[in-house]
């Protein structure tokens, strides 16, 4: 019961929808195309109209000559011939026309004029000749008119108004002549003419509708076919793309597998419960197990039992959060019992339902790296304590001698102890620089920033580095003042930078020279600069002047001292204080080293 209702309902709705679809299809047709098709059809019928007119005209002329004024008949014949020739020219012009679609309304108009002319030429014959003819010839002419009018129905069916014009041209004068003939029978016939005309126009109208609908459907289906073809092409294109994408996915899958297989790090694929599904070759080498010994077992085989609880906690978090974890350092026992420390990155793979389907673990042996870090730390500590303690004794002893508190010493001996003290100091500077660089690079240097007036900075630097100036016979001079400015900086570390810059400037200045120190505004910064009149910075050296262990000229190191680390430390210190450091050669010889520190308000 239910089933049949459904079936009926379906078929009814199918019917309705078919009509709707048809209407929709008709609507798709381009009306300009439809008109052009109708015009083309009308022109295709023109040879029939021209031929019928010419032949019927010839017969009529033949029949009428001698029974009428010879000249009038010949004039009428000339009209018919002229019409036929003109209509032929129109037809020819139409076929030569390059664009029949957009000019279709014009061609229709010309055709309407031609049809009216054609009809009117017959009408003329009726109007002029009918009255003076014998009964038989009147019958002949009436028959001819009726025939010509009904031939117009199929010829002009594609446009009923043209038929209406054409038939009116024939029947209008004939109707008038019959009505005014003075004969009752003719009046009765005359009254039949409009009826006859109306019926023919209605038929022409119906035919026009059929043509219209036919052409509309033809174009709609044409368009539909075109759409269908386009759609098919697009689908085909998409299929090709899809195939290409599939190939790419396959290729990248193979590539990934290859990456994992050949990677120098251990890669393990784990199930969500921690069971090992796959391991790569590097993992086999690293842990000393063959793949078959690990696959199928729990990954905890690679974790020391005392850390199993911690492992479970991390694993649960991983599965719950479904987020990758990096930098996990885990103690992993090898097959031979020796522990490795590996750094792991674990990535859960999640399907479209957000379920974890696998976990990829990538591990790198960092045992040696950690050991190296520990050794570096130990070395640094040794450097700082074990080297500094004996240096304290060496430099201290020499200072006591050189300062004269132990009494006068022989001049040459004094020179030697001065050399020894200076070089002891150099060694100490080197150690301090190395420790500083190490501290900065390992991120262990903490700054104690405070608000400092640049003028104070310059004054302090001049006092602290007076000894350098004296030693190299160079005078430090402050140039200009910058009152009311403040910078945020670590006082001790800025002075360390100043000492470096001033000692460099003093070292490379000619004896008796002047080193100028300036502080000035530089945009949002304060620029502190040290200007010397030394040899300037050689071109080849500029790129690496702030690098480690660099000096322009290695003989300079021997003559003037310095570790070659000073400017590298300065750069790092200034950058830690959000500043910039740089240099330029001075016009007239010498170099300027400057650093910018952000200006702050006293708030």
């Amino acid at each position: 019961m239910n089933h049949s209702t459904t079936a009926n309902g379906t078929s009814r709705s199918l019917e309705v929808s078919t009509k709707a679809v048809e209407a929709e299809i008709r609507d798709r047709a381009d009306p300009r195309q439809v008109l052009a098709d109708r015009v083309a059809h009308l022109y295709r019928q023109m040879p029939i109209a021209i031929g019928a007119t010419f032949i019927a005209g010839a017969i009529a002329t033949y029949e009428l000559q001698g029974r009428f004024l010879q000249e009038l008949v010949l004039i009428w014949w000339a009209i018919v011939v002229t019409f036929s020739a003109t209509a032929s020219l129109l037809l020819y012009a139409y076929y030569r026309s390059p664009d029949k679609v957009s000019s279709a309304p014009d061609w229709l108009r010309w055709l309407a004029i031609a049809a009216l002319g054609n009809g009117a030429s017959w009408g003329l014959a009726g109007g002029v000749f009918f009255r003076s003819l014998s009964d038989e010839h009147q019958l002949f002419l009436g028959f001819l008119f009726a025939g010509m009018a009904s031939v117009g129905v199929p010829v002009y069916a594609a446009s009923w108004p043209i038929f209406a014009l054409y038939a009116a041209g024939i029947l209008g004068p004939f109707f008038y002549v019959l009505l005014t003939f003075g004969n009752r029978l003719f009046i009765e016939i005359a009254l039949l003419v409009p009826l006859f005309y109306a019926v023919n126009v209605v038929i022409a109208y119906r035919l026009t509708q059929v043509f219209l609908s036919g052409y509309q459907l033809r174009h709609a289906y044409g368009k539909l076919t075109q759409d269908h073809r386009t759609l098919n092409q697009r689908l085909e294109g998409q299929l090709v793309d899809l195939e290409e994408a599939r190939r790419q996915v396959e290729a990248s899958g193979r590539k990934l597998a290859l990456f994992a297989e050949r990677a120098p790090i251990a890669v393990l694929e784990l199930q969500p419960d921690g069971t090992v599904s796959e391991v790569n070759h590097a993992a086999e080498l690293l842990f000393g197990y063959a793949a078959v010994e690990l696959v199928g077992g729990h990954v905890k085989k690679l974790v020391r039992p005392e850390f199993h609880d911690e492992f479970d906690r991390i694993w649960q978090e991983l599965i719950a959060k479904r987020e990758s974890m990096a930098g996990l350092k885990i103690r992993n026992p090898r097959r031979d019992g020796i522990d490795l420390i590996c750094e792991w990155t674990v990535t859960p793979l999640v399907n479209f339902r957000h379920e974890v389907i696998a976990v990829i673990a990538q591990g790198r042996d960092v045992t040696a790296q950690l050991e190296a870090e520990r050794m570096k730390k130990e070395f640094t500590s040794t450097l700082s304590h074990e080297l500094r303690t004996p240096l304290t004794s060496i430099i201290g002893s020499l200072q006591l001698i050189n300062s004269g508190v132990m009494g006068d010493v022989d001049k040459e001996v004094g020179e030697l102890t001065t050399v020894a003290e200076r070089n002891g100091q150099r060694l100490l500077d080197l150690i301090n620089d190395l420790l500083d660089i190490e501290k900065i690079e390992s991120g262990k240097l903490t700054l104690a920033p405070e608000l400092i007036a640049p003028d104070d900075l310059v004054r302090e630097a001049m006092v602290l580095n007076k000894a350098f100036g004296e030693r190299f016979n160079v005078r430090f001079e402050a140039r200009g003042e910058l009152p009311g400015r403040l910078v945020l900086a670590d006082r001790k570390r800025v002075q360390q930078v100043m000492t470096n810059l001033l000692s460099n400037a003093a070292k490379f200045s000619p004896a008796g020279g002047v080193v100028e120190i300036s502080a000035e505004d530089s945009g949002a910064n304060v620029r502190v600069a040290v200007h010397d009149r030394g040899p300037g910075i050689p071109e080849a050296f500029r790129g690496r002047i702030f690098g480690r262990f660099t000096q322009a000229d290695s003989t300079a190191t021997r003559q003037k001292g310095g570790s070659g680390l000073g400017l590298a430390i300065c750069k790092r210190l200034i950058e830690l204080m959000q500043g910039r450091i740089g240099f330029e050669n001075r016009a007239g010889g010498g170099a300027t080293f400057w650093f910018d520190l952000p200006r702050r308000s006293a708030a």
Partner: protein
Amino acid sequence: MPDRPLTRICYVEDDEDIQRIVRMSLERVGKMTVEVVSDPTLALQAFAEFRPDLVMLDWMMPVLDGPALFRQMKLRPETSGLPVVFITARASERDLAELQALGAAGTISKPFSPRDLPEQLRAIWAKLP
């Protein structure tokens, strides 16, 4: 600032060479009286006998290092008020801050200049209450 000048210094240091330099520096340059203690475990006794104005402690020493000795001094009423200056080659800034908080009068880093050492100590002395 204490109302008397700094004259009596007790120095606890296990390295004999540095002992000698400090002694010479303070005696010759600073004109002070110096008592040096090599064994930190005997330091408390030495303080009681010598009665220094100020104590200098080396940081790194075997058996009992400077900070540990300093904490012991803080526990005893007879030494808890003694000003203490640390001499150290390796203390981190955090360690120093911690010692300052515990009440160290100052720190002098190794290597120090024997020429300037008496002045450095007098400067610390001048800042004491």
